[in-house]
């Protein structure tokens, strides 16, 4: 079976998030102080733009190379999306609580912001990975 456009697009999302945010966290950790720096913000903004560009290029390549024969999500797509969102919400909720704990325990804003960012990134990864899993294995 050929992968659907949606499944391939989730692969693009997964790989681009790992590469972009992986690079970001490698560059900013360990922190140089308790607060985020201007360099952190500049790096983050630049990588965010790159992430958007990667997504657009990835979608264009997929449309050009693969057959874009399933533009409208059907009931199975909607269920797969819901399962991905449900798993992602658990990660995000945990991250918010961890961020609240960091407000109380860690000085400065570096750890609070990066715990929240990390939980967002991991939740996106889990969402895409869950959807790929269900597209490949069924449910």
């Amino acid at each position: 079976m050929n992968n659907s456009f949606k499944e391939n697009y989730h692969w693009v999302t997964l790989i681009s998030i790992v590469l972009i945010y992986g690079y970001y966290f490698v560059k900013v950790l360990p922190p140089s102080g308790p607060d985020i720096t201007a360099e952190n913000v500049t790096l983050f903004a630049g990588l965010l733009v790159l992430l958007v560009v990667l997504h657009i290029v990835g979608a264009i390549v997929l449309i050009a190379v693969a057959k874009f024969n399933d533009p409208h999500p059907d009931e199975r797509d909607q269920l797969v999306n819901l399962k991905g969102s449900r798993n992602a919400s658990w990660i995000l909720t945990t991250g918010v609580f961890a961020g609240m704990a960091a407000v109380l325990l860690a000085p400065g804003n570096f750890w609070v912001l990066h715990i929240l960012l990390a939980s967002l990134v991991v939740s996106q990864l889990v969402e895409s990975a869950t959807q790929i899993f269900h597209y490949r294995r069924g449910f």
Partner: protein
Amino acid sequence: MGKSGSHIANNIRKLRFDHEEMTQLELAEKVGVTRQTVYAIEKNKYSPSLEVAFRIAMAFDVPLDEVFKYKP
């Protein structure tokens, strides 16, 4: 919306063959789902909603129980 390994078997592959070797894409277009969903239903990886099940039966012009069988 069932799970893989469900107790619901189907004859979609045979029915497609009997209908001038209808492709999965042709069936998908008649039913209003993606080809990947037809593939998943055919391979028992996904149990469709009742509405989609009826639409599949209508696409082959047969009763529902000729397409799907429940095996407890």
